[in-house]
Each structure stands twice: as C-alpha cells, then as structure tokens.
C-alpha cells in the first residue's frame, strides 16, 4: 500500500539573514512499502513555508506529518503567548518553542526546521532547529536532503550586506542547483521576504528557474 508515510525530506531551505529570506521547494515524496522504497510524488506543489505568526515563518523538512503537527502546536503556543504579552512575539521565542518540542520528543520525531522572521528587537533573524533539537542562530542556513549540494555554493557566494534583490537571486539560484541534483527536491520554488513592512510571497515555477548547465 503506497503512501504509508509522507516525507518532505527532499526540501532544502536557505535563509540569508539580511531580510530573513526563506525559500523552499515544493515536493513531497511518499516513501512506503516494507519490501522496497517507492518514490511517488504525493504533492508536487507543497508549501513548506508555514506562517507561524504575522512576521515569523518556518521552513519544514523531514516527515510531513511530524512537521505539520509541530508547526500547528507552535502556532497555537505563540499566538497565546503573543496575546498574553499584547505585543508581537520575538523570533527567538518562536525558535525556542520549536526547540522545546523537537528536543523533548527527539526520539519520536523526524523534523528539521528553520525559523525565520522579523521583530523589533533584533530585526531579521534566522534560527536553525535541526533533527535532535539543537537551536542556533545563523546568518545563513540551509536544510533538507538537497542542502548538502549547496553548502559550498552558499559559503562562497554569501556575503553580509547583500540587498534584498541579491538575496532573493542567491536563494533562487541555490535552490535551483539543489533541485537539479537532489532527486527528492523539485517542483516549484517558494520565496518569502519578511521585513518590518510585512511579508511578500513569491512562487517561481519550474520553467522560470535560473538555468545552470554542466551537461
């Protein structure tokens, strides 16, 4: 029986810190069957950029069920916290809520999450909560199965102080490269730019992706 467990491990994200830009590809692969692994794309346009609050997003990788459940829980907790405080929540708070769930249930969960957003205290921020439940703030972060292919690209091409447009271009380029190489990544590229003024979402379809060819 196919699709017993839906995985979004394909996804790779990267978030340069400047304006907390997050991108994600939209592919879900369903792996199933005890006797062999099937790769069937259950949803080729998945939205892995999930809003947690007005100016805080998270990128999900790993098990679709686990990450959706965690994101729902954190959205609730953060919403409640924000109402108690009567002010917009900090990105660090959101990241800590993710970390709390991911670390406490680390044995049961498969979830790699990038939390990114904007708040008044520290501006744009990116926090990485990988499998296991670590929490670390980084200027740029990548995650997911395709991320391994673009560490070099990110290390060499990212510089602090890029403009928003440059960041978006860099992100789209990195994702295209990863999607080209990683069998579990593909579909569309979703970009979200979060800043003081709000959130701007964009979708880049397959035929509009930047082209690189080595063959």
């Amino acid at each position, binding site marked *: 029986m196919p699709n017993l467990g839906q995985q979004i491990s394909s996804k790779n994200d990267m978030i340069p810190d400047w304006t907390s830009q997050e991108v994600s590809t939209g592919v879900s692969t369903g792996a199933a069957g005890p006797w062999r692994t099937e790769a069937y794309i259950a949803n080729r*346009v998945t939205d892995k950029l999930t809003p947690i609050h007005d100016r805080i997003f998270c990128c999900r990788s790993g098990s679709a069920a686990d990450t*959706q459940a965690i994101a729902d829980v954190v959205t609730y907790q953060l919403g409640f916290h924000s109402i108690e405080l009567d002010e917009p929540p900090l990105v660090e708070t959101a990241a800590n809520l993710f970390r709390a769930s991911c670390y406490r249930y680390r044995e049961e969960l498969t979830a790699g999450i990038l939390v990114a957003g904007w708040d008044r205290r520290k501006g744009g921020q990116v926090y990485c909560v990988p499998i296991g439940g670590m929490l670390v703030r980084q200027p740029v972060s990548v995650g997911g199965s395709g991320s391994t292919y673009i560490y070099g690209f990110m290390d060499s091409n990212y510089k602090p102080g890029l403009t928003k447009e440059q960041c978006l271009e860099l992100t789209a380029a990195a994702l295209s490269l990863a999607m080209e190489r990683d069998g579990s990544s593909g579909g569309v590229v979703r970009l979200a730019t979060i800043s003081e003024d709000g959130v701007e979402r964009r979708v880049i379809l397959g035929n509009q992706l930047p082209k690189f060819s080595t063959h």
Partner: protein
Amino acid sequence: MATLTVTRPPFGGFSFENSKRNAVLEGNASKMGFNLPPARKTGTTICGVVFKDGVVLGADTRATEGMVVADKNCSKIHYISPNIYCCGAGTAADTEMTTQIISSNLELHSLSTGRLPRVATANRMLKQMLFRYQGYIGAALVLGGVDCNGPHLYSIYPHGSTDKLPYVTMGSGSLAAMAVFEDRYKPDMEEEEAKQLGKVDYIRPHDEANKKGVRAHELEAVHPTGDYKYKRGTTSVLSKVVTTLDLELVEESVQTMDTS
C-alpha cells in the same frame, strides 16, 4: 563511442519492461488457441476534484481480503456532515471508524458553534487524531466539502500529514488516477466535466476481469451502478433430484414485533 550502462535498482512508477515480452507471449498463446489470464487488480482507488462550485468525490466499490473480493459493492464515501464527505482507503475498519468518530464530534461541535461545520475543521480533527496514533491507524482519506468559504479538498495520510489541493487521489490505484488527473484537469470546470473526470471509469482498463460498481458522489446524490448477477447456467448443473415433502399445515399464527 562507448556508452556506460549502469544497472539501476527498480524505482517507482510504471514499469514497461515486460510489455514486449508479454506481446510475444500473447501472440504465441493465441496461436495455440488459448487466452492469457486477465490482469488482476486489488485495492482501492479514491479521488477528488474541485470544480467551479463544489467538489466531486469518486471511489471504487471493491473490498478485498487478501486475494479474495470480500464485498463487491461497498461504499467508500463516508458521511461526515451534510456538507462534508470523506473517501477512505487503507484498512476498511480504520477508515470507517475514524470517519464516524470525527462525524460525531463534528456534529457536536457544530451544535456548539451554531454554524455549519467547515472542511478545515474536519481536516484538523482527522489529522490530529491520526498523528496521535503515529500511523497505526491505517486510514488514507480524501476529504471534500463545501462550506461558507467555498469548496475545499484535502488528502490526509495515515501518519497525519495533509495536503490541500485542487485534485487528489489515494489508494493503490492512485498512480493511475493521478495520471488521468494530471493530463485532463482544468481549473474551474463545470460539474459534468468534473464528474466525468472523477469517474473511476478511466481505471477500468486496468481491470478487465470484473465490471465494478462505480460511485461518483457530489454532495447531492449517490449514483451506484454495476450489476453482478450471474446467468443461469454459469455453473453447469450435472443432475437434479426433486423430492416433495408431504406436509400439512397444522397451525398458523402471526406475532408482531415490538418496534416502538
């Protein structure tokens, strides 16, 4: 120029490796005068399509117990609320009970809010329950309905992940059905178009052995079709012995059942 051939392990999707060999075998068999056995299909195909003003849900009607058909005409489209229905694939008991539980809770919730239930609510309840059971409840569902925000369609997997899409398929026949959808889906279709698309009719070529009943449900009426009556003489009668029993009527009484 030498080309490098690498043997790959078989991956998912349709495999046409044997089609050439099968064609040859079929040719040989017909020369001998007999037909090859027809392809056997097992499992479920369920699907859903969003059209202009609503949702079409489609499901086949076969329930299997291993290699045996347990029920030829079972209903895989379950009632959740007057405006929401759910197709279920996977373990029949799990889909049945899960949808009944959520239907009951949703009715209570609807009475509590005083509003018609929303599809998103049903989706939340289902995914939270399935996630709690970590995939041990083998229910793969296609949830569709119309509420105050328009028509909605969700696919829900046994581990508790959900996708909100314009067209979804689930079950062992989902690949074949998805192939049809990817080819022929258009946004904002008319109702008839959508019903035609959703009709598991297109799956029939994959199963020529039995004509199955097909139900296409669009939240207004159920149209069951399909007939399984065998002709007299399908099983040949070898001999027939009729023995009349001489019985006389002694007493006749009628007792009505208390159904109040």
